[in-house]
């Protein structure tokens, strides 16, 4: 909230209660649904004809799907940053952003899990992982840690929501019958007693402590899927830290974009203030510098040595087929946002929004660059293979499914914002009272 502006509980409640979609909201939602349906049709074709509809072949067997998976896992880490780390550090200003961060985390992790199954030619064999899985395999660790992170994130979304559910139930006239039933099912037992608050607070603290190592594990394990494979570009001991720093950056970038959109659409200027953008801007610039530092390590050191086996891979990134995308990801995803956010004017809402979009888009391409070029440059030369095995560009089905999954994640966030308060009402009221008493 703007400093020195004390708002009444009633006004806060009225401002933050979920609202029906307006015209723009309907267009946005319909567009996302259409993209999802196109993706679903493309997946139907993949199920019917097999992975042959994709352009993945013997060498590039991890294409846009796995890039998308890494992107989703990365962006999901923001839940642990904004909610857990800030909460434990008692960073009060971040309260309005916690739910935004948590829903981004939950929707991203759901679609990370789904996209892994999409990558399987025979999805019904997914069960074999549990029936015949080996704990020695990093893929197994990834499945375990994703399931764990999903459950913790869901709990971290649900527990702080309980006091708000009581408010939503109180304002029955402002909601539909089915939503009212949903609220009652989820939170009718919350009376707001001291004992309930005490248990809830304690549980949230336990969750915040638990989610941090799990979040680190989820992305470290994802990085190990690559780093435990001896290949140019992946053979790095630095991959865990490199992935985590990138994940925090894209997650924070995603939150900035969501902050701007929700603020603008729901007119939340009193709750998501310029101070929030200023503070987030400082965090994002720090994270971008950190990620840039890891990128320098990941590319400059191998480039300095230029081992014969890695030469083709590095050349393809620096000056070859992937060079435009590589330099786009570095410039747009890191350097330009750093330049924008270093200046105070750059940390205003709109420039921050632009920087956030640049970070998220750059990060998506960065994941593509981590996965695909390496696969096109195996240590042993490609021999006796058709010419198209030497290149990879996703088929329309792959694009449709990948875009469908991104639209699906946005749709989850959109529906969540339609059903639940995107800024915690009860916590905002409590903080307002505390501020009032302080004054």
């Amino acid at each position: 909230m703007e400093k020195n502006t004390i708002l009444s509980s009633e006004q806060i409640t009225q401002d933050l209660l979920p609202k029906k979609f307006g015209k723009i909201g309907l267009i946005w939602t319909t567009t996302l649904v259409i993209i999802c349906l196109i993706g679903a049709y493309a997946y139907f074709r993949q199920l019917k004809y097999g992975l042959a509809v994709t352009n993945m072949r013997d060498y590039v067997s991890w294409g846009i799907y796995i890039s998308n998976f890494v992107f989703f896992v990365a962006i999901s880490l923001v839940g642990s940053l904004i909610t857990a780390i800030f909460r434990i550090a008692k960073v009060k200003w971040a309260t309005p952003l916690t739910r935004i961060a948590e829903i981004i985390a939950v929707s991203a992790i759901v679609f990370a899990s789904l996209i892994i199954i999409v990558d399987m030619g025979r999805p019904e064999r997914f069960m074999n992982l549990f029936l015949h899985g080996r704990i020695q395999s990093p893929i197994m660790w990834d499945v375990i840690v994703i399931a764990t992170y999903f459950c913790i994130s869901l709990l971290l979304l649900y527990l702080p929501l309980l006091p708000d559910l009581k408010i939503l139930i109180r304002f029955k006239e402002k909601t539909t019958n089915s939503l009212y039933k949903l609220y009652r099912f989820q939170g009718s037992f919350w009376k707001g007693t001291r004992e309930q608050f005490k248990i809830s607070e304690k549980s949230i603290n336990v969750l915040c402590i638990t989610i941090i190592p799990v979040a680190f594990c989820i992305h470290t394990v994802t990085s190990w899927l690559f780093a435990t494979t001896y290949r140019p570009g992946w053979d790095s001991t630095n991959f865990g830290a490199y992935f985590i720093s990138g994940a925090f950056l894209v997650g924070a970038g995603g939150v900035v974009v969501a902050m701007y959109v929700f603020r603008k659409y729901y007119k939340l200027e009193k709750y998501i203030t310029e101070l929030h953008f200023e503070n987030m801007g400082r965090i994002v610039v720090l994270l971008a510098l950190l990620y840039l530092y890891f990128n320098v390590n990941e590319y400059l050191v191998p480039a300095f040595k230029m081992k014969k086996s890695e030469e083709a891979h590095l050349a393809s990134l620096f000056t070859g087929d992937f060079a435009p995308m590589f330099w786009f990801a570095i410039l747009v995803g890191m350097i330009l946002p750093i330049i924008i956010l270093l200046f105070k004017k750059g940390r205003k809402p709109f420039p921050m929004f632009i920087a956030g979009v640049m970070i998220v888009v750059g990060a998506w391409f960065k994941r593509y660059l981590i996965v695909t070029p390496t696969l096109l440059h195996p240590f042993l030369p490609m021999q006796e293979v058709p010419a198209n095995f030497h290149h990879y560009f996703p088929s329309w089905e792959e694009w449709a499914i990948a875009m469908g999954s991104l639209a699906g994640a946005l749709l989850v966030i959109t529906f969540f914002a339609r059903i639940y308060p995107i800024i915690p009402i009860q916590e905002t009221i409590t903080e307002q009272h505390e501020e009032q008493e302080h004054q």
Partner: protein
Amino acid sequence: MKSKNINNIGRAILLLVMAMPLGAAAQQDSVKPKLLLNVGYYMNNNQMMYLLANTKAKISGKFKQVPGIAVTVYLDKESPDQLIGKTITNEEGLGKLIIPASLKSVWDASAQHQFIGSTEATKEYESATAETDITKSKITVDTISDGETRKIAVSVSAYNGKDWIPAPDVELKVGVARIGGSLLTAGDEATYTTDSTGKVSAELLKKNLPGDEKGNLILVARVDENDTYGNLKVEKSVPWGIAVKPNEHFFDQRTLWSTRFKTPIWLLAMAYSIVLGVWGTIIYLVFQIIKIKKLGTSGEL
């Protein structure tokens, strides 16, 4: 005055020298690079016969393999009934062809043959032709083992239409096949040349070579790119090596690469303790939610 003239001549030469690369570059832009076509004849173990068409071009002063070129190859004359086939060169500029059964009578009719290859002009390259003459030939490998001494006797024979006659002065490699397709030469010489009887004898100087599980080594006699006979290769298995048993040191042990039932204990302990620790916390938190629910439904304040 004289020095002024010399200066002028010097300037003219300098200009000419500087202009030469420009002229050459302009010429290069207008002229397509010359495509070099070669059709190689390969015979393995005196049975498996095939042709390899190779396309390359000199680009920026270096020979580079040219992929994607359609090569047509005929046997003896360019007529449709003597067409061996068409192939498109791969990334390495190579295209493989096998002589079809329909040309068996033509093949059997003569001891000498000619392979005629041709390519059509493309946007990048002019058309190219190649002719390769070969005489039918074969290699036989025999071994002589006398106590410590082990010799490889190789004879190369050419077909004259009726009989197999010795092929003298043929350069060939004799040795042992190693992993990855390379050849370990038998003696100190890199190559051997057949004598007037078409024979070569090479003593295997390398001792204690590791063989397969039964101690077998693969002896190889190979003629590479011979103008008369093409490429010939014969292999023979001999029990001259040391039997190497597969390393079973790790068999049935708990390792990172074992089956799921042989997971290392330390990994199991780590994984299960982490999983149980975290999931124990999650279950505890679910019970806390149930507790909150009970408090709410019982109306306790």
